[in-house]
């Protein structure tokens, strides 16, 4: 019953396992994830930088979201070690805020906007601690930061997609984390929401926090992010936008799916086509 791919992945993971840098907000060593027999993420190493905004980019099905979810333990990994600020992720949950894809939940759930934001306080209030006025004020403040203060008591199903995304971001803000992990935060949102979200993320970075986004839109990578991580099942490249977001790396990541004409329009780093 030994699957050659899995055995290989496990061995590979072991040989690669090296101590992770203590200052990296998120470091991954030798991580392999598989749905069924085919690996979705294969033996990936990643070291995300502190005080920076990083985009995880790659084609559809390249394992971008899978990598994030597996690092968080939302889906199981076959192998790999994940450290957050130098500690095993299980001991650093308080420092992480995760914003899942908007479509991953049922927005018909009976909850109001403030209910969802208050979920971000769970690790501080625990099972039974009473919610106080201070907690409510903190939640309202988070809504204000994403421009949703007027929607506090609205049922979440009655919001637009962009508004729902902002509520998710407000819930993450309520966690007061040091590492923000967002899965496609700009997918299917209006321009005003995109502006609001990027302003909040840049403010987080200015406060010294780390932000990692699974990102789809290559046209905005250079404007929004400092670092990129390119993945197509395996890690392709990783580094500052200026040196890693290059035509060569994009070709290696997307293969023939990215037309040269498209590449010309991107604000590529050094060594790029433009």
């Amino acid at each position, binding site marked *: 019953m030994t699957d050659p791919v899995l055995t290989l992945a496990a061995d590979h993971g072991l040989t690669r396992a090296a101590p992770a840098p203590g200052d990296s907000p998120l470091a991954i060593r030798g991580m392999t994830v598989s749905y069924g027999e085919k690996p979705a993420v294969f033996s990936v190493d990643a070291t995300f930088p502190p005080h920076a905004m990083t985009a995880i980019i790659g084609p559809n099905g390249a394992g971008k979201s899978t990598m994030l*979810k597996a690092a*968080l*333990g*939302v889906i199981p990994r076959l192998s790999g070690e994940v450290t957050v600020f130098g500690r095993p992720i*299980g001991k650093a*949950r308080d420092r*992480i805020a*995760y914003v*899942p894809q*908007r*479509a*991953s*939940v*049922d*927005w*018909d*759930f*009976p*909850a*109001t906007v403030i*209910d*969802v934001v208050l*979920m971000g306080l*769970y*690790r501080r*209030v*625990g*099972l*039974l601690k009473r919610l106080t006025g201070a907690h409510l004020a903190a939640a309202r403040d988070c809504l204000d930061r994403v421009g949703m203060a007027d929607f506090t008591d609205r*049922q979440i*199903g009655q919001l637009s*997609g962009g508004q729902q995304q902002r509520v998710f971001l407000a*819930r993450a803000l309520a966690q007061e984390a040091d590492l923000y*992990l967002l899965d496609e935060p700009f997918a*299917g949102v209006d321009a005003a929401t995109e502006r609001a979200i990027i302003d909040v993320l840049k403010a987080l970075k200015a406060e010294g926090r780390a932000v990692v986004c699974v990102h789809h839109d290559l046209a905005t990578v250079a404007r929004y992010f400092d670092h990129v991580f390119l993945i197509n099942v395996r890690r392709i490249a990783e580094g500052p936008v200026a040196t890693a977001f290059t035509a060569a790396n994009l070709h290696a990541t997307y293969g023939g799916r990215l037309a040269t004409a498209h590449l010309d329009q991107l604000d590529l780093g050094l060594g790029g086509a433009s």
Partner: protein
Amino acid sequence: MGNEFVQFSLTPMLIGTLAAVACALPGNFLLLRRQALIGDAISHVVLPGIVVAFLLTGAVAAIPMLLGAAGAAVVAVIVIEAIKRLGRIEPGAAMGVTFTSLFAGGVLLLEQSDTSSVHLDVEHALMGNLESLIWFKARGWGSLLDPVALAALPDELGRIAAVCALVIALTVLFWRPLKISTFDEGFAQAQGLPVGLIGFGLVGVAAVAAVAAFDAVGSIIVIAMFICPPAAARLMTNRLERQVGWSVVFAVASAVLGYVLAGYGPLWFGGQNAVSAAGMIAVVSGLILGLACLVGPHRARVGARGEAA
């Protein structure tokens, strides 16, 4: 009227009410998790478990019945996996086949075994024996203060009261993890919540409620108690806290109204005999759901998944 009511109607009504509440509380979360049919599945699997437990111990006691039901659930899971793997059949069909077969097996076992000494036969298994859970020693409302009479209350009342209290306590204690993991499992997991354990615990509590409610409403009708009150409650409000409150109101209303209508309704129409209380309770809960569909203030989009999926 008073004396007769206390002797013949008070305890069945209380048992029906407590059973309805015990099922409705986990039902709220099962419904929101789109697992409502797990209640149905559990109620089916419970039957053979209870029958086997009875055959082995010769008594209808709470602990062996619960163990029997749990054992049957484990067998069901193994059989489902086996059918899926060996028969290459899709999960839904594998579950349907397993639960129906186990339930049918339970019915056959029950028919063949000598259970005449206790309240355990096919009809009771299907529809409960609420009407027979009367308080023989009661001599009117004063009996509520009479220790001798209180000691003779049907065992079923104490059992369902304990289960109902347990369900309420667990719901209150684990309210936040239940709410968070039901709404957004990925977020809950990233926060370090044991979502697998929470989901398993929820199904476990539902199983305990189903076994306890077996006395009151039987194993088929119990599914109405899991689904109807929470589904109707969802149409009344857009907040989980209030939804759960409404579901308790509807559960109590179904039980009380259903019992009264079953006992006295036919007489009002010139009939001679009362009809099945459990059946009437399920019908009333269905009618409440129907009414909520027609006039509930938040009836739009229940069960509809948001645009993307």
